[in-house]
């Protein structure tokens, strides 16, 4: 007679792949929820100055953390029982576990920080721990999902699942860049605001790089499936538009301006579907890098305002100051952002090779 334990073990072994994949999707989805909550939290702080830790955006963020924690657990159980590719998936599970360790540790750390020093700014030790944990979980989830799709030769419409694997990496990476470049980190106790020239350099290099790397990676991992730039980029615009622009009454009109960003995405898809030569890809890399100031509307303005105008910008004046400096920012950043956009293309190839173990 087969014991119950053996049956359980058998069930786990048969379904380990499904568990591993499901867990990894939950990790990516959880981080997506955390990043959406995080972006909403920044807007909430600007508009309503919440005075308590227990705010709706924080609720959404920690719901995401719970989903991620559950996902990592399922993923780890699945990985432990895998029959094939166990070694190949080890990196992804290792990154996920490291990430969730930081993420779950950041919760109580944040609460203690709030209790002792009041509300913290965007960059603080607990927030940096949280964002780093988010980024690592997202990267771990992306590696797991992308390798799974590759090892199982999934190249049909399911390869659009790469979008769900990459969007949390893009959003959490953007969170990291924002925390190191936006002047939102001065409180009564600490001034963690980045030095204005340092912030300028960080924003000008890393925003275009992350846009370009993520979009090219999605396209390459899916073997240039049509529309990847538009789907992934459109999702980014939708999330950013609904959490950073729509909640601010004074910015609602500018959603038309923001939606124009679909054009370079569609154009990139058209170019890649027409011609995948090196020249075309370099052109697309430069194009995508050059539009970062429009993609990161409205908050990116705060970084450039610090160095160009130094104005005090209250939330209803964000669009006004943003448009006041747009030409100056474009002139100053167009060349570096194009170069970095092209570098993102090269970086995406390196990451693709790493994911595909080539």
């Amino acid at each position, binding site marked *: 007679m087969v014991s119950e334990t053996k049956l359980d073990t058998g069930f786990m072994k048969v379904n380990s792949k499904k568990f591993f994949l499901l867990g990894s999707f939950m990790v990516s989805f959880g981080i997506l929820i955390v990043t959406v909550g995080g972006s909403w939290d920044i807007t909430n702080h600007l508009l309503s100055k919440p005075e308590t830790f227990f705010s709706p955006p924080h609720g959404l963020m920690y719901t995401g953390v719970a989903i991620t924690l559950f996902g990592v657990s399922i993923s780890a159980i699945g990985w432990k029982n895998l029959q094939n590719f166990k070694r190949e998936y080890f990196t992804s599970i290792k990154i996920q576990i490291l990430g969730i360790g930081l993420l779950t540790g950041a919760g109580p750390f944040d609460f203690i920080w709030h209790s002792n020093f009041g509300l913290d700014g965007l960059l603080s030790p607990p927030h940096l721990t949280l964002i780093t944990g988010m980024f690592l979980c997202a990267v771990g989830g992306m590696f797991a999902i992308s390798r799974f799709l590759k090892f199982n030769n999934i190249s049909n419409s399911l390869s659009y699942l790469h979008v769900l694997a990459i969007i949390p990496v893009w959003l959490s990476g953007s969170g990291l860049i924002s925390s190191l470049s936006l002047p939102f980190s001065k409180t009564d106790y600490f001034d963690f605001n980045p030095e204005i020239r340092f912030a300028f350099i960080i924003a000008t290099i890393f925003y275009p790089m992350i846009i370009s790397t993520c979009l090219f990676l999605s396209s390459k991992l899916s073997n240039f499936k049509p529309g990847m730039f538009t789907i992934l980029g459109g999702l980014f615009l939708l999330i950013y538009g609904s959490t950073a622009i729509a909640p601010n009454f004074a910015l609602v009109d500018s959603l038309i301006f923001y939606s124009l960003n679909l054009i370079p995405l569609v154009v990139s898809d*058209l170019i890649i579907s027409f011609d995948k030569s090196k020249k075309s890809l370099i052109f697309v890399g430069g194009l995508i890098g050059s539009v970062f100031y429009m993609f990161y509307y409205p908050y990116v303005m705060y970084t450039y305002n610090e160095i160009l105008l130094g104005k005090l910008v209250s939330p209803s004046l964000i669009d006004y100051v943003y448009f006041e400096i747009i030409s100056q920012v474009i002139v100053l950043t167009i060349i570096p952002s194009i170069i970095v956009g092209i570098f993102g293309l090269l970086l995406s190839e390196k990451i693709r090779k790493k994911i595909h173990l080539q």
Partner: protein
Amino acid sequence: MKKILFFPVIASLLVIYFVMSVFVLPEQFLEKEQLISQPYFEAKLSKSEISLGESTSLEIKSKNIGEYGDIHIVSTAFPDIDNTDSIIKIVSYDYLQSPIFIQKGDEISINYSSGLEKSVSKYPSIEAMSRPSIPNVPFSMTQLITPQKTGVFQIYVKSINIPHVNESSHFPNSGNMDHQNEFVEKFEIFVNP
């Protein structure tokens, strides 16, 4: 798609994008009239003449009677005292953020500059605040005042909305000025022995 059609289509789309994003729409947004929020308040003392040891209450009702704004502030200041301890007590309060007690000697914003120009407070004050400032939503605050000396006890009341755009962004617009070089409405309590 034929090359002859493809390149003009791509070029046209990119020209439309950059011209609209960098030149046309920014110009339109900069020409757009800015929203101007306008604070207003009514304040009254329950008794303007009291005996030493007695209390009187100051009730303030305020709102934004203009357009959407970011912050609605009501400030009460007390030029005849050095601290508010056991003299001023907030009895009721329904503004969205907690009141801020500003002590004598604290750094304060002046000239309606929203923090760009600063000075040092000469006397204590209390700031009530609601963020954001939605039009026509009323707020109120009641303070219980127990002067500790005979004579005249003065209270300065003012309201400011941020962004401060022009003179309708503050109330009152004329009269006495306080240590922030901003207009105030003056209330007096006569304290008898």
